[in-house]
């Protein structure tokens, strides 16, 4: 399941809900990844835009990959502003086996960073500045660029 929230995530509640949803379903390994806003470069926080239609189809493709390994994935992400030391992202895998779970969370989080249609802005003195230096062009980008 994919959960989108306005503002920061309530991490303890989300982890509790997810654990309790699956605890009787015979998954031997549960690995959440929690992303929290760090204080660096004097930012006041981060802000996020999401494009839901493609985010949902991207997530659905990963759900199918998980299903093939008898695993499931869950993800929560913030929309809008998330201040310093608040959390904006949780991805989790539940899998029968440890090894598969560790590999899956790794691949999932890496592809999330490279492909999920989410844009990050630094909040700095009341401004919202696109974090282009930390952003990654989606695979296949540039097809409208000048071919000369």
């Amino acid at each position, binding site marked *: 399941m994919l959960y989108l929230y306005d503002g920061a995530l309530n991490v303890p509640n989300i982890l509790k809900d997810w654990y309790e949803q699956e605890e009787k379903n015979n998954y031997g390994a549960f690995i959440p990844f929690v*992303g929290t806003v760090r204080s660096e470069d004097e930012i006041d926080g981060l802000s*996020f*835009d999401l*494009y839901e*239609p*493609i985010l949902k*189809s991207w997530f659905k493709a990963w759900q199918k990959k998980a299903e093939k390994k008898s695993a499931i994935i869950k993800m929560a*992400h913030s929309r809008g502003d998330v201040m310093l030391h608040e959390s*904006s*992202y949780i991805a989790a895998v539940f899998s029968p086996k440890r090894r598969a779970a560790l590999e899956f969370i790794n691949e999932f*989080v890496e592809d*999330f*960073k*490279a*492909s*999920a*249609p*989410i*844009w*990050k*802005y630094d909040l700095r003195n009341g401004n919202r500045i*696109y*974090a*282009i230096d*930390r*952003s*990654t*062009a*989606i*695979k*296949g*980008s*540039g*097809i*409208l*660029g*000048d071919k000369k």
Partner: protein
Amino acid sequence: MVRIEFLGPIQKEPLELQITNLNELAKILQDDKEMQEWLTNSAVAVNDTLICSSNHELKDGDKVSLLPPVCGG
């Protein structure tokens, strides 16, 4: 008509254009100086599916989205 949407940080209003493929869209957008860098680093989706060739045909009612570099998490 084909609707063109610019996502995330691309500060540009949607367009409605009479075009039949992505190459025509590329020519139109390349004339806009402010779009040139976005064109080199943005991905393109037609009706919310990512497309990897500019030869992709478009039909009346299609939606084209430009997705600039991403950074979730």
